[in-house]
């Protein structure tokens, strides 16, 4: 039978364990306050936030499916899902997040050597160090493999010179996982995967102000930065393969399929009723909006069912299935639509930028709406994702090879 999370006694036992542990360790003062996490990928420091982060970090449940050997939770995907459900049920959220968890960790677990894993994974599990991603460059966006940041072999160290852009959270990051060019004679095979300590002399970051008013991204400059030889991950010139794998992790995280994000605002139907009222039969009074809210709710359900299905299939077929490839485009489109609907439901109140006269939910809505526009641009734009589906899944010819 298909496995859509049917009842299972082992899972029930784990559910009880998770419920108990969460009850003991989740500070009730933080109930539903995962919003900041979702925006910055990092929880505020101090107080109950600190307590909660420490508890989850030590338990390894912030990275539930990572191996116990490096401090992870060692849970099965189904157990991780149960944990998420139990957290949702009490308004708890995962305080361990960011690039290290979403992208770098899973990739290092796959491609790193023992020394690299032992050194870098545990601090990610405990959210002690923050990572940023040095991939895009001013001249290398969707065509990432044309990147130019130069990395020279100087015998006892690497010497890095160049510029990265859209480096998420670089201003707060302790480390950067970076794509650098170690060979200029080959395009893809000339790229290597390098770990750079952001405190190294010659590293400079400048935040970029976005349409949302936030500055989650930076320009990052490398000027004669010396990097230890042991910071190369995988073989020299093998960076592109690692990067592709990493982007898969990024895309599954960005689509929302990873399920690790804290619970967002109120559900759309409830929100619509509170702003627009309902008719005698309990329907949202604006029938056009009601239909579009219904559509989005249903698409969202279809998306979640697909995430479950691809999980069940991956488990039984031992590998990612075709369904996985669609998740980023489908998920980001739905989230953007949701943000648009939220704004429309709130009317002019939803356009409040700052100051008095607006609820924090309203002020948050306008920022999320704008910030969310980036999701179909980064991590492989919507168009690049469609190219990937066309080429790799559907077997359609590469338009570039034809010309």
């Amino acid at each position, binding site marked *: *039978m*298909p*496995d*859509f999370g*049917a009842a299972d006694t082992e899972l029930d036992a784990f559910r009880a364990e998770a419920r108990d542990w969460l009850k003991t360790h989740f500070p009730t003062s933080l109930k539903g306050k995962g919003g900041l996490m979702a925006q910055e990928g990092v929880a505020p420091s101090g107080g109950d936030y600190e307590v909660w982060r420490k508890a989850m970090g030590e338990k390894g449940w912030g990275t539930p499916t990572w191996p116990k050997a490096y401090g992870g939770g060692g849970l099965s995907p189904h157990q991780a899902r149960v944990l998420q459900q139990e957290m949702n049920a009490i308004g708890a959220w995962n305080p361990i997040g960011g690039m290290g968890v979403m992208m770098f960790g899973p990739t290092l677990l796959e491609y790193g050597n023992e020394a690299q894993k032992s050194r870098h994974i545990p601090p990610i599990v405990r959210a002690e160090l923050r990572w940023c991603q040095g991939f895009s460059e001013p001249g290398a966006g969707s065509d990432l493999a044309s990147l130019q940041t130069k990395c020279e072999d100087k015998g006892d160290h690497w010497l890095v010179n160049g510029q990265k852009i859209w480096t998420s959270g670089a201003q707060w990051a302790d480390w950067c996982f970076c794509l650098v060019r170690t060979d200029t004679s080959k395009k893809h095979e000339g790229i290597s995967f390098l770990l750079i300590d952001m405190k190294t002399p010659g590293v400079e970051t400048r935040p970029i102000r976005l349409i949302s008013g936030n500055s989650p991204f930076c320009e990052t400059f490398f000027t004669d930065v010396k990097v230890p030889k042991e910071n190369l991950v995988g073989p020299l010139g093998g960076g592109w393969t690692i990067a592709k794998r990493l982007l898969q992790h990024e895309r599954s995280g960005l689509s929302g399929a990873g399920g690790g994000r804290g619970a967002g605002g109120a559900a759309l*139907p*409830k929100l*619509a*009723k509170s702003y627009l009222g*309902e008719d005698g039969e*309990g*329907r*949202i009074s604006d029938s056009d909006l*009601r*239909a579009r*809210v*219904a*559509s989005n*709710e*249903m*698409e969202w*359900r*279809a*998306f979640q*069912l*697909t995430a*479950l*299905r691809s999980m*069940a*299939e991956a*488990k*039984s077929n031992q590998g990612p299935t*075709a*369904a996985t490839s*669609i998740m980023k*485009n*489908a998920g980001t489109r739905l989230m953007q639509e949701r943000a648009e609907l939220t704004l429309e439901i709130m009317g002019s109140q939803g356009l409040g930028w700052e100051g008095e006269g607006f609820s924090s939910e309203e002020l948050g809505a306008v920022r999320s709406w704008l910030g969310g526009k980036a999701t179909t641009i980064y991590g492989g734009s919507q*168009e690049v*994702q*469609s*190219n990937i*589906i*066309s*080429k790799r*899944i*559907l*077997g*359609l*010819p*590469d*338009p570039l090879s*034809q010309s």
Partner: protein
Amino acid sequence: MAVLTEEQSMLRDAARTWTQEKSPVSAFRKMRDSGAPLGYDPAVFAEMAEMGWTGVIIPEAYGGSDFGYLSLGLILEETGRTLTASPMLATALAAASALILGGSEAQKSEWLPKIAAGEVVGTLAVDEGPHHRPEKVATKATKSGGGYTISGAKTFVLEGMAAGLMIVSARTSGAETDAKGISLFLVPADAKGVSRKALKLADSRGVANVSFDRVEVGAEALLGAEGEGHALLEKVLDRARAGLSAEMLGSAVQAFETTLDYLKTRVQFGQVIGSFQALQHRAAKMFTDLELARSCVEAALTAIDNDSPDVPELVALAKTKVGDTLHLVSNEMVQMHGGIGMTDAHDAGLYLKRARATEATFGGQSYHRDRYARMQGF
């Protein structure tokens, strides 16, 4: 594709082999061109029954294999791929479900073995207009003697001409749109006062309007409790909608694959048209929708097999999502084939016509979107 048991994989493979070899789209075309009066080829249907397909959801005690709805969905997906014309949907899915869910021991013993063997075609006669509105029932059943007298008219009855048994909704009390007061009756098609008129629809399948003029049935014809037929009918319809969704998924997948093949072979401007990004991205969108639709369909069928409480919402979701997807894919099939897609000689038109007929059957997308919203309390 859902994770299947070994039996289910074998069933699906057998269905795929049989439909591809014995019932390709060309067979449907031949049936259409021959003007077959029932809208299907009885010899082909007999073969399907012989393979046990008509008894997949029927308990073993009544001559079926009790394989469940997901299993039947696997078969329907394959028949949907090749547009196989047969009364499977009406009889092996809808009528069988009605008897399994609402039938007394005597009713099940009388009808289920015949349905399982393909000897009798059963169907639902529930709609009374051009739109699916199962709660709107003007047909009346009044008590007379020891039984009932039924009068009224039903529209767009699937396999209406072939049916030997009709499951008819009629009002035993209440006003025309009340949920309460609807009762279901088992009416043999040869009962006195039943008359039917074949309708020719764009998809060339068997559909009829049926009228009931003072049709007398015994008390034993009542299916379930008197006046409580609406809840039973909804359960039956949800099973029919889920199975139909599987058929629609199959049609959509095939329409897409046929189109994809064309994109890879048709050459214009010195290159295959599938190398054009404008078409690639539309193909990627269709593929995405197909994957999402498949998840919904399989979840709905699985929920039925598990007798899960979320069957109604998952079915509304599945019918809507697969309906939207089939709508898109069938239109794109014509558009991407260009002029050849407009010709009757090409299969695109057959998929397009069948798409709209299945979308309308048992409630279209807007019907189920509204229904989903109501179930979610908005």
